[in-house]
């Protein structure tokens, strides 16, 4: 049998060696993980990173969460439910990033122009939702709520329940400084489970900072608080729209 010899150009040879190196590193990491896998992997450093940078995380989300909670005009209990929905959306965003980080977090950071356009678009979408929330009332009237049988009303009800989760998701996939640190750290983990666990722990670390938010419900004794919340939502919408536009324009210029 004849042996076919192929000659690679220096560039292709370089690529081959780089790929081999990456595969080797990944195998080594997986071996290390397999050897440790008798004990459950809990990236506690993710938790502490979240705990130490939670204030920054909180103030990155507060411009979205505060107008929403004020605009709903719910009491403390109702706000807790809204907060849980918001946090679930945020967790979903984090876990999504956990997967991306595992697949190639470092590579993601290198593609700067596309990244800017992507996050700019996220900001613009967020701004549109905030503006819509400010201008329109998506809640069904009490009487209609009780007898919500039509598909349109059901849709509105489901939409209003999912809305905080959507806001949480959109804020969850923003690149605030602590989030970037988490992204960089988690991309060093070898497995999908490790990466998502890292982000989950990071999320848990930031959680305590959000717990006082439902107490905004104490302000409902002032009758005009809802209107103030709605106006703030529009204002925040304008702010995020500007940020989004600037990011997109910046990203296009880099390209």
């Amino acid at each position: 049998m004849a042996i076919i010899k192929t000659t690679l150009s220096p560039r292709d040879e370089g690529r081959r060696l780089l790929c081999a190196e990456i595969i080797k590193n990944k195998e080594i990491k997986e071996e290390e993980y397999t050897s440790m896998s008798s004990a459950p992997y809990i990236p506690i450093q993710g938790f502490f990173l979240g705990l130490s940078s939670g204030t920054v995380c909180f103030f990155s989300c507060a411009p979205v969460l505060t107008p929403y909670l004020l605009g709903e005009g719910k009491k403390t209990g109702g706000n807790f439910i809204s907060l849980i929905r918001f946090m679930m959306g945020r967790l979903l965003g984090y876990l999504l990033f956990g997967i991306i980080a595992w697949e190639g977090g470092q590579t993601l950071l290198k593609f700067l122009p596309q990244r800017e356009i992507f996050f700019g678009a996220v900001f613009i979408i967020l701004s549109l939702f905030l503006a819509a929330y400010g201008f329109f009332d998506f809640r069904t009237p009490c009487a209609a709520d009780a007898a919500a049988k039509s598909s349109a009303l059901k849709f509105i009800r489901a939409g209003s329940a999912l809305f905080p989760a959507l806001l949480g998701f959109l804020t969850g996939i923003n690149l605030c400084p602590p989030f970037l640190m988490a992204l960089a750290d988690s991309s060093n983990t070898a497995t999908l489970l490790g990466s998502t666990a890292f982000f989950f722990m990071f999320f848990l670390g930031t959680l305590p900072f959000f717990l006082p938010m439902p107490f905004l419900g104490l302000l409902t004794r002032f009758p005009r608080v809802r209107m103030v919340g709605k106006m703030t939502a529009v204002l925040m919408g304008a702010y995020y729209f500007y940020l989004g536009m600037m990011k997109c324009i910046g990203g296009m210029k880099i390209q």
Partner: protein
Amino acid sequence: MNSDEMKTGSPQKWRFLKPLLLTIPMALLLAMTLTGKEKPKDPITLMAVIITWVFLVTLFYLMMSTQKTNRYRAIFFSTLAVCFVFGFITNLIEIRGSMLLKDADMMAGETPFCHLVLPFILIPAILTKTIIFPGSLLGSFAPVATMVVIWLGASLALGRGWCSWACFFGGMDAGFAQILRKPPIKKIDRRFTLLPWAVLIGMALISAATLSPSYCEWLCPFKAVTEFPEVTSSTRVIQTVIFFTLFFFLVVLFPILTGKRTQCSLFCPFAAFQSLTNAVNVFDVRIDPEKCVHCKKCIQLCPTLSIDEESLARGRALLSCTKCGKCVDNCPKQAISFHVKGTEACKRAILDRNLFLYPAWLFAATFGGGTIAGAIARLFKLITTGSLF
């Protein structure tokens, strides 16, 4: 008793003497506060201080003798705003050569601090123990600590009265609001009075998230007549356009068209923040339900939309009341009066008014007197030497 005697509560023979006696302590106090520790050596400055003193004492005497508060307060307030802008701009040109604030000035912490930024530095100051403003804490021109102390004093003495007695920006839209006797726009949707709260919450959150004084950077209309960052980027272009647009609409056009202080009542976040101090301040404005005939003249005239039907029924102005005294001056039945909390309302109107006017005028004249004297001194320099500097 004739009608004047009825109004002042004094017989005719006391008509000139009583206000004079009430003015003498104020005149002495103002002489001390305007001159500082010693008489100014420079004749131009001395002349400016004397003119300012005469102006302030005369206004106070007129307030006391006519029992009209807003009429004379408004003259002082608009004069203060004009003198502030004139003095501030000439000062900037003298020091920096232009109104433009350069990055180097900000880096060196040489940005003058104004009270409008106060609500936005609080959260970052608590969280990071740093002042997120490119000014200095103690030294240089208008340092942070001095303004905070002045603001605390004003809040104790006046509450939101600051916005009608001492704010050097407020006199601008108040002045423009006086231009037309019959403004064409009569009705403003009262929901817009909540906008300052939204701006306050929004800007405070953005300031905390970005650790920068966002209101100053983006929305302050008074940048147009004080100082604004040098235009070096597209962002700065947008910011400068926003400053001038907001100034034109909120401080000039809308006040002329509505007769209301639109910037102060419909946009200024500091105004919303300062309203909270009304809750702890000892003075407020009360409406006597027995005298009130519900003519609603006060609702129509209030420049900051601080009286509505609901508050009329409750017998007190809203928390946003700036204690300008316009409703007190114009009520046809004298049903509205200044009031000291904890005392019986509407029963001792003259005493309560005097108790309010003393700290209010002393603070306003002390705080604003230096600004007015400085501007007059600049004008004298211009006349005598041909140069402002």
